[in-house]
Structures are given as structure tokens and as C-alpha cells.
């Protein structure tokens, strides 16, 4: 019992230290429970997705996490405070109107191959080439839109894709140019206060054109020796869907501060096997489930956790008046009926929090987080309750019944669920909570993930649990979701007021005023409730005692292990 209390206290201390954002220090250092892998200078870490390694084709957080170690974008995020720091660009400046950015590329940066041999210099041309390939319709890159912020880029993409009526634009007219080997000038289509957040995205990594043409676009980065690397590590081995081995790049500009020799990225399919591997010293960092967390806690081994920025909610298909869920008061009744705390404790058993607001992981202008700014503007009140508020739930429910002309047992609401034990449990708990508080017999319909997504996109559902992780550190990444035309707005929500707010935010240059616009957006979501925010995810992981400090897991940085220091 004492041990457990101690562990919880340690967790609390960890949480507090994590919130002031320093690169991690291992909370279990020297405990002697899990010493980790035996190869000196090397660590093995879990990585859940590693399907593609061509940076322009990447979409998964964890793939981007590996690219963070093998490539250098113009800028990076610091593992200490998650702020923008120089990487391939030594310095940069922007014009007074914020539309032109000039980057000075770090001289002497090298491209190395899978044997660690120098192949060429990293120049401004490599960025121009990579971004051109990102915008090349033949490559069909899912995240091409990161390069679509440049002047004429979207127009070029449309023209090159053969969109009917698109005026002719050539790639030379797109707003990025290498003035000389070390000077890159970017022109933007619109003012983007968070432009640097875009170029830090690993999809925007440089590519060395002579090598790319030599191996051919279709073969590039399909194996360690068909790619080049300019980051702190280079890839030496890749077994598809199994593991990737990266070694320290001695030619990297800051190699003197890298003490790791090797990182092995392992993909696990079986959660128990992963746990056995950690306990047996075959891996140094794994993500853990709520049950596994309890087990470690009972042993007195501290589990770490981080916020990746994922906010989870229920999509509501509100644009079909035949569906009961289109009734606003019913959605509000459901939001108040749900006991978010109980839900987290039953299903996830970790530190995930009931959402006080929607957007998570975003910094505020004058507050640490954007969410704090929303709460401050709302008189310190949360937009969504922690526990079920029966009185309010029933009050809204009575209104809903009256408007719908139905009795409680006639209310027809279905949770559409994509298969998976935890997913199903999550929805069952909500189903039970609605039954208890509102007396609704909600149904559950389990589908494969692809079918569920197809139905979600067609607005053919009532309630569907989903989540969103931010791509860059600005409220826009979360809040423009709910505009009428956004492809990710699967609710059918269409509010002129909301759309107008987002348009205003796009041109507002005063950061405080801009943030207030986003605060209004958050309030409008709570008022119109196209989604019912449920929880903010905290992700649990354990680290072997081998990794002493210097690693980081933060929003936008699922892994930053570059400066990991090992225990002696």
C-alpha cells in the first residue's frame, strides 16, 4: 500500500514537472528493476507504425517520429520546451508583411547514405526539390497541403492534377526559391503566424535530387540504401513492419552533443509480448495500457505519461432532421448525462482528463495553454462537465422530448463503433450512462474501421467516437475542422457565424485579438454542439533505467530521443 502511495505521489510529481516542460529525467533511475537492453550505447524503443520512410509520403505520427531522427527540417522543436529551434536553417527572417521568409541554410551540412558515407552537401535546392515533389500530383502525397501554403502552390497543384478550368501555373511560379546554395526564399499565399510550425513538419524534410533521380521516385526510401539522411541518425536496417535500426550520424552538425550510438525502433503487434520484452530487457521504451500501468504501479515502478495533443469526442451527424440526434437539446442532454470521469476510470484507467474545452496541446498567447485562455474567457467555468449533471441533463432532455414530440423510449440513438475491445467498452459505458440518467435505450452498431469511416464521411450515423491530434501549434489546426467546407467536418455542421470567425482569424495579425476569435469558436462549438467533447488523452509509457535523461515525448514530438543520455 505504501509502495503504491509512493508511486502515485511520484506520478504526481512527474506530472507537475512535465507541465513545466523539461526534457525528461528518468523517474526510476537507479531503482534496479528494469535495467533495459544490454548493447552498450544503444536503445530499443517501441514504434507503432513504420510503413513508409519516404518523408513526402508519411502520415503517421510515429513515422514522422523516426524521420525526426534521420532528417533535418529547416527548424525543429526543442525537446526541452517544445519551442522552435534552428535545424537545417541556421537563421531566418520574415518581411514586415509576414509574407516573405528568408532562411539561411547551415553551411557544411552533409547527406550521408546507409553506410554513413558522405554523399553530398545539403543546400537550399534540396528543400525546393522536396517540396516540388510533395506538390507533384503523380506522387499523390496525402500531406501535400503542407506545401500548399506557398504562393501559387495550390493553384499549381490543381493545374498539374488536371482540375477542370484551373489556370496554368508552373512549378517555377510557386513561392519557394533557392537564391543560392545557402539561401532559401519562401513566399506565402496568406499571412501564417505559425508558418515555422509548418516547415518543422517532417513531411517538409529536404531530398537530395541527384540521388532521388538515380534510384527513381518509385524506389526512393523503400529500403535503407535507397534513401539519404541529413539528420542526427541514419538508417542501416529496415525489416518491413518489424524493425528499423538507425545509427548515429557523425557528420551531423550537432553530433558532438549526441551520446547515443544507435536506436532500434521495434513494432509490436501483441501487447503482452511487448510487456514481456520490456521486463526481459529486450526493449527500453514501450507504451502501456491502463492494466499494465497498474501492474507497474504495484511494483513501485513509475509510469511516465505525456500529452500528444489528442482530443476525443463524439461526432454527431446533425444535418439530417429525421435523426433524433439533430436536436440540439438532445445533444446537450447527452453531454450532461455522460460521466466523463467514470468513463476514463472504467475504460482507460489512466490520467486522461475529461475535456474542459475541445482543443488540446496548443499554446496560448499569454497563458501556457490555449485552453486556459478559453476557460478564463468563460469565467473559469468548464465548457463540458467532469461528472454527469443529472438535473441539467434531464432539463435539456425534457425540452428535446417536447420538440421531437416523443417519449424517452421512442428516442432513437445509435453509437456507431469501429471494432476493438477497448472501443466497444468505451461505447458500452456511454450507452449505460445514457440509460441510467436519461432512460434512453441507445443502440450499438459495431463495424470495421473502413466501413465506419465511410459511413462517418457520408454522415450516415448518430454518434461516432473520434479524435483529433493537432498538426501544428496553433488553435487553427483544431478549430478550422468545424467550418462548413472542411473535409474533416463529418457532422454536417454549417454555421455562418463559425465560418466567419475562422475567416477573421486567418487575416487577424494581432495575436491576442486572434486568440479571442478562437475562444469564440470554442464557445460556439459548446453552444451548437456538432461534437460532444469527451476526454483529453494522456499516453502512458515506461522507460528502462538505461535511459537516464534527455529524451522527450511532447505534443508534435511523439519521440525526441536525439539527446538521450544513458545511465553509466
Amino acid at each position, binding site marked *: 500500500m505504501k509502495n503504491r502511495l509512493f508511486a502515485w505521489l511520484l506520478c504526481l510529481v512527474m506530472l507537475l514537472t512535465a507541465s513545466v516542460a523539461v526534457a525528461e529525467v528518468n523517474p526510476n533511475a537507479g531503482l534496479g528493476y528494469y535495467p533495459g537492453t544490454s548493447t552498450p550505447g544503444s536503445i530499443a524503443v517501441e514504434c507503432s507504425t513504420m510503413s513508409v520512410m519516404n518523408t513526402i509520403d508519411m502520415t503517421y505520427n510515429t513515422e514522422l517520429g523516426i524521420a525526426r531522427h534521420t532528417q533535418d527540417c529547416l527548424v525543429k522543436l526543442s525537446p526541452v520546451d517544445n519551442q522552435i529551434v534552428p535545424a537545417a536553417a541556421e537563421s531566418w527572417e520574415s518581411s514586415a508583411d509576414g509574407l516573405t521568409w528568408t532562411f539561411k541554410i547551415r553551411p557544411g551540412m552533409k547527406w550521408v547514405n546507409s553506410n554513413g558515407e558522405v554523399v553530398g552537401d545539403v543546400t537550399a535546392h534540396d528543400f525546393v526539390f522536396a517540396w516540388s515533389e510533395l506538390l507533384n500530383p503523380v506522387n499523390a502525397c496525402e500531406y501535400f497541403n503542407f506545401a500548399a501554403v506557398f504562393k501559387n502552390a495550390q493553384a499549381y497543384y490543381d493545374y498539374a492534377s488536371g482540375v477542370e478550368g484551373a489556370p496554368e501555373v508552373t512549378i517555377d511560379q510557386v513561392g519557394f526559391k533557392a537564391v543560392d546554395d545557402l539561401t532559401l526564399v519562401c513566399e506565402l499565399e496568406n499571412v501564417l503566424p505559425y508558418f515555422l510550425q509548418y516547415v518543422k513538419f517532417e513531411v517538409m524534410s529536404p531530398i537530395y535530387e541527384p540521388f532521388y533521380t538515380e534510384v527513381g521516385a518509385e524506389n526512393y526510401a523503400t529500403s535503407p540504401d535507397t534513401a539519404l539522411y541529413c539528420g542526427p541518425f541514419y538508417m542501416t536496417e529496415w*525489416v518491413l513492419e518489424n524493425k528499423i535500426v538507425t545509427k548515429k550520424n557523425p557528420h551531423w552538425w550537432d553530433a558532438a552533443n549526441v551520446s547515443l550510438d544507435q536506436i532500434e525502433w521495434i513494432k509490436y503487434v501483441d501487447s503482452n509480448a511487448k510487456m514481456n520484452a520490456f521486463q526481459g530487457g529486450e526493449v527500453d521504451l514501450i507504451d502501456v495500457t491502463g492494466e499494465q500501468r497498474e501492474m507497474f504501479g504495484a511494483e513501485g515502478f513509475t509510469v511516465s505519461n505525456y500529452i500528444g495533443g489528442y482530443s476525443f469526442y463524439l461526432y454527431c451527424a446533425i444535418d439530417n432532421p429525421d435523426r433524433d440526434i439533430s436536436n440540439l437539446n438532445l445533444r446537450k442532454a447527452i453531454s450532461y448525462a455522460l460521466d466523463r470521469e467514470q468513463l476514463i476510470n472504467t475504460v482507460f484507467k489512466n490520467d486522461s482528463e475529461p475535456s474542459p474545452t475541445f482543443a488540446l496541446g496548443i499554446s496560448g498567447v499569454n497563458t501556457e495553454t490555449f485552453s486556459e485562455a478559453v476557460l478564463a474567457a468563460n469565467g473559469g467555468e468548464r465548457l463540458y462537465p467532469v461528472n454527469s449533471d443529472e438535473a441539467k441533463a434531464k432539463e435539456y432532455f425534457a425540452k428535446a422530448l417536447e420538440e421531437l414530440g416523443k417519449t424517452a423510449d421512442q428516442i432513437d440513438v445509435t453509437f456507431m463503433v469501429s471494432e476493438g475491445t477497448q472501443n466497444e467498452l468505451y461505447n458500452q459505458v456511454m450507452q449505460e450512462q445514457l440509460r441510467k440518467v436519461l432512460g434512453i435505450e441507445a443502440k450499438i452498431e459495431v463495424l470495421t474501421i473502413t466501413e465506419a469511416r465511410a459511413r462517418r464521411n457520408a454522415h450516415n450515423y448518430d454518434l461516432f467516437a473520434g479524435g483529433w491530434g493537432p498538426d501544428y501549434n496553433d488553435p487553427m489546426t483544431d478549430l478550422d475542422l468545424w467550418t462548413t467546407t472542411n473535409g474533416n467536418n463529418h457532422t454536417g455542421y454549417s454555421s455562418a457565424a463559425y465560418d466567419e470567425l475562422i475567416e477573421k482569424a486567418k487575416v487577424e495579425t494581432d495575436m491576442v485579438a486572434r486568440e479571442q476569435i478562437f475562444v469564440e469558436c470554442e464557445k460556439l462549438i459548446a453552444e451548437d454542439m456538432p461534437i460532444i467533447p469527451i476526454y483529453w488523452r494522456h499516453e502512458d509509457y515506461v522507460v528502462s533505467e538505461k535511459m537516464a535523461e534527455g529524451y522527450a515525448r511532447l505534443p508534435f514530438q511523439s519521440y525526441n530521443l536525439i539527446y538521450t543520455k544513458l545511465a553509466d
Partner: protein
Amino acid sequence: MARYIIKRLVYAVLTLFVLITLVFFMMRMLPGDPFLGEKAISPTALANMNAKYGLDKPVFIQYLMYMGNCLKGDLGVSITYNRPVMEIVAESFLVSADLGIRALIFAVIAGILLGAIAAIKRGTFVDSLSMFVAMIGVSVPSFILGAVFQYFLGLQLRKMLGMNIFPIQGWGTFKHTLLPAFALGLGSLATVSRLMRTSMLDVLSSDYIKTARSKGLSQGQIMWRHALRNAVMPVVTIMGPTVASVLTGTFVIESIFNIPGLGKYFVTSIKDLDYTMIGGTVVFYGALLIICTLVVDLLYGFIDPRVKLEE
């Protein structure tokens, strides 16, 4: 003989053709879209992605193109991994086959021995013990065996002895193959030993064994020359499908021991709706199954001259 083989080969090609056709149209009937990710894609980008994989053409044209490519031995490019399906299947099949052959050798040798001994020592403790082992093998699924081996022989043994005898997971060295091959082979071992015991009992009570005994042959000679060779026939019969299934890997054993084999792609390609990968794995598995069955039929003739291959 040659006519028989040619006839069987023609049947094999026809079966494959029907299989590919069925799978091609069935997977197109699955709800959803391979590019339907968590985040939405702009219509232009989606059109570009469809064009890249030829999904913008009418389904029937796609079918003809796919068939044409299959004939050339080209199974297309995986939508998920963006590399040739043949390359992925070949790479991972080598791993699955490596593990499978080890499991099979273990299963066949141990299974035949166990079954034969049980039959010879019928009714004794040895019989009960070997049939107990067989019962465990048949009734406990391999994923439970795998998990149990991993936990006790991998993790707990290491903790107890402080040394690494059986790696917990991974692939690459001989040590890595031991636990998964054992877990994978035990099920087949059980089937083989039970079949062997029954058929051996039959053989042992037949007239030619009595003749052999009355000739004064030694027990060893009778068993080796007369009994085993005849009793092994039913085991050979089930070898075809067993070889195909063991060689192409199993999702669970490969998941538990984190082995980069072919097994997982049978499951994940359907989940991801990776059309080319679904097609590739099915064609490959189908072809292998057909070949294995054919080989077994031919083997029959060699082992037992009474079996005539011509109709």
C-alpha cells in the same frame, strides 16, 4: 504419368483463375475505401491517389489489367507500403517458410516417433503419455502455447537463471527460432502422432506383419521395413495442406514472437483494404496450396505403388 501431371496443372491454373476472379470482385465489395484515413483528403489529392494505383478506371478494366499483370508475375504495388507486393511477399515468405520448415521437421519426426511408439507399446504408460502430449497439442491453440512458452521459458526462466536462453521475441538468430517453432509445431505434431498411432495399429494387426514375424524377422526390421512405411500413408495425405499452412506463417505466432513473416499480411491487408496486397497474399497462398496438394498426390505413387495416378 505425364498426362496426369499436365491435367493436374491445367486444373491448378483454372482454380487459380477462379480464385483471383472471386477475390478481386469480393474485395471490391468490401465497404470503405483504401485511402479513407482518419484525416480527410482533398478531392484532387484523392483523385491523384486513385490514379496512382489505377483505381480511377472502371472495375472491369482494372480486373483485366490485374489479370494481365498476374500473368506476367506482377502483383502490383502495395497501397499501404508503396512497394511491390511481390517483394514484400517474397521477403516475408522466406521468414515464414524458415520458421515453418523448422516447425514441420519437429512436428513430423517427433509426431511419427511418438505415434509409432504409442502403437507398439499400446496400453502401457508410454502410450498414455504420448497420447496425453498429443491431446494437449490438439486442444490447446498455438497462441496460448506461444504465450505460455514466452512467459515461462522466455521471461521467467531468464529472471531465474539470470541468463538469456530463449529470446522473448524477435528474429535473426537460431535461438530466436526455438520457442516459436516449438509452439507452431506442437499442433501438427499432435495430429501426426494420433494419425500415426491409429494407422500403425491397423498395420500391426495385418497379415503381412504376421508373415514377417513368422519368417523370423527381428522386431526392428519388421517395424522399419514393413510397418512404418505402410502406416505413414495417412500422414503423407495431410502433409499437403499442413505444409502450405505452416509455411505461409500464422498471424498469432508471428505476432507473439514479433517475427517479420507473411502471416500478418493476411489480416492487416484486409483491415487496411490494401487491394493489391490482399490479392497478392491470396494468389500466393492459393498457388502454394495447389502445388503442395499436387506434390502430395505424386508422392503417393512413389510411396505406395498400389496407387495409380492415371484414372
